[in-house]
């Protein structure tokens, strides 16, 4: 019912530079923004001291913002109801193919070589033997038609199926009282979620989308799909799962996004 064609702002340039330039020169670019503060001050008086230019990035300001973000993570954890189910939708509402999203463009996706791929396990897990895709396919599947919501604000309804993460973790003897479950992607992406969300009934290790194996751009062979987290907490192209009590900083948290990111 609410599948929206994403709007592209007229102000957004048609041709964007290669993203790697951005990553390599992030510090320089931020510095250039800082210098714009000097011209910015003239335009909006006192208020411009707060604007996009540099206040958000100053380390003292970042310290305050990040500690509030940490406090909010605790509040989110307190608010989380492990029994509350996310709304589900009709099969007719499923978007096909799913919407692509990654921190790079679809042309840069490096498909997983399934011949050599295995799901590695590490940390507080009794049976750490790696899993092949066929072994994962053999597990009982749960199908869910749920809404994917991105921190940017867009959403879409999709259909994913695969074993419930709770069942999988139980099967491999994971410590279900540990704090974090980490997912390591094939592409240097790492995100962790809290154990309560990992054990939620709508959290699955998705192997299929709309009944077919997930396509290469969308996470083949395995992605996390949980109905209770923002999109960036649903890693694609998973190659390893780690259960741990140690907090390791994830890909987006390094840049200031909050860790809990719960819906």
């Amino acid at each position, binding site marked *: 019912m609410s599948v929206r064609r994403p709007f592209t702002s007229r102000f957004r340039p048609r041709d964007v530079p290669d993203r790697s330039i951005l990553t390599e020169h992030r510090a320089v670019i931020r510095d250039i923004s800082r210098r714009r503060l000097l011209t910015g001050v003239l335009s909006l008086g006192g208020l411009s001291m707060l604007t996009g230019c540099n206040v958000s990035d100053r380390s003292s300001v970042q310290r*305050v913002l990040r500690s509030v973000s940490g406090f909010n993570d605790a509040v989110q954890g307190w608010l989380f109801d492990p029994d509350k189910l996310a709304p589900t939708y009709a099969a007719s509402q499923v978007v096909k193919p799913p919407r692509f999203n990654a921190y790079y463009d679809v042309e840069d996706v490096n498909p997983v070589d399934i011949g050599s791929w295995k799901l590695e396990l590490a940390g507080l897990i009794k049976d750490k033997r790696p899993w092949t895709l066929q072994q994962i396919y053999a597990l009982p599947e749960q199908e869910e038609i749920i809404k994917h919501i991105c921190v940017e604000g867009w959403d879409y309804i999709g259909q994913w199926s695969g074993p419930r993460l709770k069942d999988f973790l139980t099967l491999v003897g994971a410590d279900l009282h540990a704090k974090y479950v980490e997912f390591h992607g094939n592409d240097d992406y790492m995100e962790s979620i809290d154990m309560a969300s990992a054990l939620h009934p709508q959290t699955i290790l998705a192997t299929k989308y709309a009944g077919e194996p997930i396509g290469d751009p969308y996470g083949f062979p395995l992605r996390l799909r949980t109905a209770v987290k923002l999109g960036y907490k649903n890693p694609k192209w998973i190659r390893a799962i780690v259960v741990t009590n140690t907090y390791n900083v994830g890909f987006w948290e390094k840049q*200031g996004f909050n860790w809990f990111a719960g*819906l």
Partner: protein
Amino acid sequence: MTIHQTGLGPTAYPRMHPLVLRLMHWTNAVAMIVMILSGWKIYNDDVLFGILHFPDDIVLGIWAQHALQWHFLGMWVLGINGLAYLAYGLASGRFRRLLLPLSPRQVLQQVIDALRFRLQHADLVNYNAVQKTLYIGIILVGILQVISGVAIWKPVQFSWLIALFSNFQDARLVHFIGMSLIVLFLLVHVTLALLVPKTLIAMLTGGPRIGASSSHTDGALAVARPAPDHSP
């Protein structure tokens, strides 16, 4: 009894804007600006209207995550201070005294007066119908913003809030419309305060002391003045 007959000195009467009220007003003002400017940056990440993209020079936050950090800081200030303001306004009787009664006919007449630059503004301590409408409006829209904002923040935990707005995207739209109404209010409110500077000064230093006067049959307030001969 008139003010003069009570025998109380003028300093016994409260100011039009008590200190605690002024503190909450300015805290709300700063918090709202933080929410609006960071909200614009968050909006930019997935625009609702293709023609509208807020310029980077005026938003709060260099990247999306900064805007979110500011927004999730501001929400506490606005939420807690806003609640305190509502509680104070209701418990102290200030809302009832200043914002009611409100008659639609008066509103219409005074809006026309305002547009003709004939709206009376000499009386600092009694709000005209335009003011009452705008102040009641901003309180209601502010509450709507908090509700729609919390729904967007927790669309699963508070799925029943999302249901009030139909779905997630419509909750975003309501939140955007609320922001637009608040920005419109701010433009009018700030402009009028600057056009009648004694209102701005009143919100900084408290304004005149007030008390009930029997010379006003409609229960309007009067400024407390010292009696001409106070010595026994």
